[in-house]
């Protein structure tokens, strides 16, 4: 296989990590909503934690994107 082709395939495979980030973000917001609808008075207090969880989950997917960019532009 051409090294260039292998690089591109590897970068594409690394982007699959974003699927996990999607699942994570969906789960966080879903769990927050179900919790908030059961106990609306406690929902506002947990909003910072929601944002923190969202940012943390999104970042793990972006680590995969970084690997893809390293494959494309650095190696």
């Amino acid at each position: 296989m051409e090294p260039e082709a292998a690089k591109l395939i590897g970068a594409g495979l690394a982007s699959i990590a974003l699927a996990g980030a999607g699942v994570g973000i969906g789960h966080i917001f879903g769990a927050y909503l179900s919790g908030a609808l059961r106990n609306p008075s406690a929902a506002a207090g947990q909003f910072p934690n929601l944002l923190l969880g969202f940012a943390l989950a999104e970042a793990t997917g972006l680590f995969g994107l970084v690997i893809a960019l390293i494959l494309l532009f650095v190696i």
Partner: protein
Amino acid sequence: MATEHATAGHGGEAAAFDPMHQFEIKRLIPLEIFGIDASFTNSSLFMVVAVILISGYIIFSMSGRALVPGRMQSVAELGYEFVANMVRMNIGSAGQKFFPLIFSLFMFVLVLNMIGMIPYTFTVTSHIIVTFALAIVIFLGVTLVGVVIHGFGFLKFFVPSGVPALLLPLLVVIEVISYLTRPVSLSVRLFANMMAGHTMLKVFASFVVGLGFLGGWAPLAFMVAFTGLEVLVAFLQAYVFAILTCIYLNDAIHLH
């Protein structure tokens, strides 16, 4: 970033459609000290602009010291209260002496992220070396705080309590590794979010141009929504950066 890998868009100039072009560092004032390239770059320029903006705004808005704050002073007090609450919630009263650190970190990252959202500006935090330098300084500083407060007792941090002795050797290794990856994850999180966001905006912007006057409206609407999302992400990442620093400090002060 390597521009030679760039793929040109619809027959336009390569630089115009290259999503990585915006991250290029240019030397504004070339400078070399003892063989080290210490040029004043556009990255340095935006850092200086951010520091002047933050200090200037806070000094100017608080100079009145009004008991009933005006509009400018309210915003400055809002930022102060926000960070003060974050420190109080995460570290407790022992963290009050670290408030200036957290406040400067939060404001610096926030303003750099927000300046980056203005078109034709440079996003300093989209370079791993900047975020990694911030993260490694935080990491070393937090470790130092832990060692100064607890002495050798700080090593207890790596030994989880209530675990069977058989598992301990394995868990201590895992704890040490997870501690050592903190600066990496802290810096890569901010850098990757900023870079991926700005690249995505640029790619979508090139769709608007590529589809022309008739088809370009749909991606343009997306662009507006994405820009809003990116402003949110710019704030969130500064918040996460500051709050993780708080959590690390709390670990160092209270040992779990």
